[in-house]
């Protein structure tokens, strides 16, 4: 289990992470979402042992991660900006990782060759296309048999078929070896398909962190037609995240379970009322829309 406790990070006086606390259960596929500049890549670099937190603690299975080679050896990271030695091919990097990572699995490397047939393992990685470079990175990362896989915008640049292929490989690892996957992405529809836990970061701190099921069950989208054209005045205790109107149909995003919300709206005797599930993207938008300075809110809506 990855545990991040009250981590602070400053960059030249800018408070990038503010007492960030998060927990990633073992074997979970954890989606880390948040607006640009929320601190997603920063926390991933902390988790890969690159950055030292200014305050707080980061542990993997109870062991400190920073400057702990034994723990870092269990972690594989695919950053948003890939790096490899100048003119090094996939095979060169494989040899390097084989000497560095104790769990490097040569058999898996050979087996995965079929999964990434387009990647020429003898060609310098820098000469490969962006998608190929990503494939090479996945190939090398999966061969390390990591207990924790950290992915920053992992499928960016991959074609749909390869995306499915890559996710399929990772999900198999999760199923077979209990690998924990922490993935940061803006592709919320994709995360919705694979993640079982979600954390929403905003301004360096964790806004919401729970399982996707809980998250989706806690916010509901109601489409309601009231008897009057205008919507009635709702009491303040009803946590309405957003309300819009098209013709006589009111769309209300409201916090609570579908049953609970339906019962509360029933008192207004609507002509028509229907509860719809929210997608992760909608939850992301409406949850962050509650923040006063999140400018995307108005643009999107």
């Amino acid at each position, binding site marked *: 289990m990855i545990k991040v406790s009250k981590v602070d990070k400053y960059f030249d006086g800018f408070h990038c992470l503010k007492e960030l606390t998060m927990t990633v259960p073992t074997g979970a596929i954890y989606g880390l979402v948040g607006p640009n500049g929320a601190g997603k890549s920063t926390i991933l670099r902390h988790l890969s042992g690159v950055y030292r937190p200014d305050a707080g603690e980061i542990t993997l299975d109870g062991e400190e991660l920073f400057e702990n080679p034994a723990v*870092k050896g269990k972690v594989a990271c695919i950053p948003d900006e890939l790096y490899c030695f100048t003119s090094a091919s996939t095979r060169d990097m494989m040899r390097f990782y084989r000497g560095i990572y*104790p769990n490097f699995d040569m058999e898996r490397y050979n087996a995965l060759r079929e999964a990434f047939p387009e990647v020429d393992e003898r060609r310098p990685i820098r000469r490969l296309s962006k998608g190929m470079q990503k494939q090479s990175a996945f190939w090398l990362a999966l061969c390390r048999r990591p207990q924790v896989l950290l992915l920053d915008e992992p499928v960016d640049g991959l074609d749909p078929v390869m995306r499915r292929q890559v996710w399929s490989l990772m999900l198999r690892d999760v199923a077979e070896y209990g690998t924990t996957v922490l993935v940061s992405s803006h592709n919320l529809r994709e995360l919705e398909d694979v993640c079982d836990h979600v954390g929403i970061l905003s301004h360096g701190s964790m806004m919401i962190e729970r399982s996707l099921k809980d998250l989706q069950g806690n916010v509901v989208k109601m489409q309601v037609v009231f008897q009057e054209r205008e919507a009635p005045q709702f009491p303040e205790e009803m946590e309405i995240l957003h309300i819009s109107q098209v013709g006589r149909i009111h769309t209300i995003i409201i916090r609570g379970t579908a049953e609970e919300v339906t019962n509360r709206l029933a008192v207004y005797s609507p002509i028509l009322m229907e509860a719809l599930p929210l997608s992760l993207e909608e939850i992301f938008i409406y949850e962050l829309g509650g923040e006063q300075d999140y400018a995307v809110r108005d643009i999107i809506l």
Partner: protein
Amino acid sequence: MRCETSFFSLTLFKKELTRYWPLWGVWLAGWILVLPVGLWNSQRWNGSASVMAADVKTLLVGTGPFIAMIAPLAAVCVFFYLFKPAAANFVGALPLRREGAFATAFCAGYVMLVGPLVAVTLLTLLVELVLGAVAAGSLFTLLGGCLLQSFFWFSFATLCCVISGNGVAAVCFYGIFNGVVMVMTALLDEVLGSFLYGFDRFGQQVWEVAEWFTPIYKMSTSDRELAGALTPVGRMEMLWVYAAVGFLMFLAALGLHHIRRAERAGDLIAFVPVRWLFLVSVTLCGGLSLGLLLLVIIFDARMENHGAPLAGCCAVAAAVSWYVAEMLLHKSFKVFRKHWKGAAVGALCFVVAICAIDMDWIGFTTWIPAPQRVERATLTLTGDFDWPAREGLEYDSQSVSSLIDLHRYVAQHHPDSSTPADTDSYYVGMDLTYDMGLTTQRRTYYFLCPEGSELEALMETAQVAGLPQVDVDASNPREGYVSWRREDETEGWDELDPAQAERAWKAVVEDFQAGRYRSDPQYNNSYQSRDDAIELIWLKRDERGYSYAEDTHTYQCSPKTTSMNRFLAELQAEKAQESQEEDAAPDTEAGDVPPSDTPVPQGAEVPLAEAADTP
């Protein structure tokens, strides 16, 4: 886990070496051409161990600059992860401790430098064996020297790389640190010498310290110059000193690397306190050097009496330097509004500092020591005057008052040092040193002295007081010669028999005891002569009867030396009488000619009766 307890990663080490093979390959090829191939070509026809040893030793002097050039390249290569964020993330995520990454990179870089040297040494030994002229001692001395130099230069370059987060900047810092102390010392010497009246230019000790802080210069110094230094160390000793400094740099780099933040990769300076140091240093160096350059370009090549323009030029240069430093740190040209305060403070500091020097706020120029505090003092007078230059005139607490009078006059009146308008003035260079127990104060002045002025009188008094006392008991007067040369260019010489020599010495002692003059040991027993001197030369004869000058004593001749002048007048009269008697005798030749093997001064006799009458 293999990396858990290890502070070294063999995989990373091998990767570094294989990645940068072109670098050490070129280094190896160069050494092969210089050593085994060069020796083979030059020595195969007349190979001898001594000649080969000389060749190898010469190489040791010349290797410093080359190692100094290759070392930063090697450091930038192996510490690649300090300069690129992506590389920093890559290496930072590897299961390695930071110390492990550092040690691995350092070893790889050092091996790149010295591996080829070791290989070439062995190859050269083989060549020497083939040539039959083995100079193994010299060869391994060369190898040892190169290993020490490499360690120093590579540690130096490593420290620069760790401090900086940019490869180009690290190499620039490396180059700048190599020369900044010498340049700043020269600039400071120039400014203080030009604006601080009486400032004694930096002495040899200061320059030698500056040389030690300029390793590229120091290591390129020839053995002969090394031997003549104030801290006389041999080449190998010097290299050991630098290697020890290199070890300290290595430790510093290791410590800094440990606390270095990975996110600083790509920054010009990786540490916040060093950023401030960088800002201040750039402002100081830029302000002084650019300020002087501006002054010379805009105003005049001569800096004297340009205090206000210099302050202005340095202030502008300091502000510009501050902004440039901020631009480099922030990688942006838009720094003018945000950082104007720093630029203003930098400029103000320069104005204040130059005003302090020019207006002598610290009282350096007007400082005159209290006579009772001076334990010992020395004076050296040089210049294009008629009377002789005096070096190292010494004063004790009793006799120093005349020197202080002279010093006070010069410090208060600031005698003109510009081109003389007439021929009645002459240049004087005056160096003063006051030893006051715990401290030593030095002053140097250059000025014009009008003839017959109060200043000239003070100088004469001071130099007479500084001449050593006559050692009354030291002389052993016997037959010899006396010669004289006066300011009015009258000169002459005469033989002295033992009785006359006794009388001459007695005159010297009388004048000395009456305080009328002192001895001038600078010319004793030397072939130099002075323009206003009386020389007493005591002769000694060998077993064959030939005489030679055993002992000479030189004394200042002036109208005040009445006893000596009287003696010379009497001697003149006696000699004239003897000459008349000899002229009267038909068999006697006119005039005596001194023996050819005696050091006889040239010059015609002059009457001394006038001098004898002088009170």
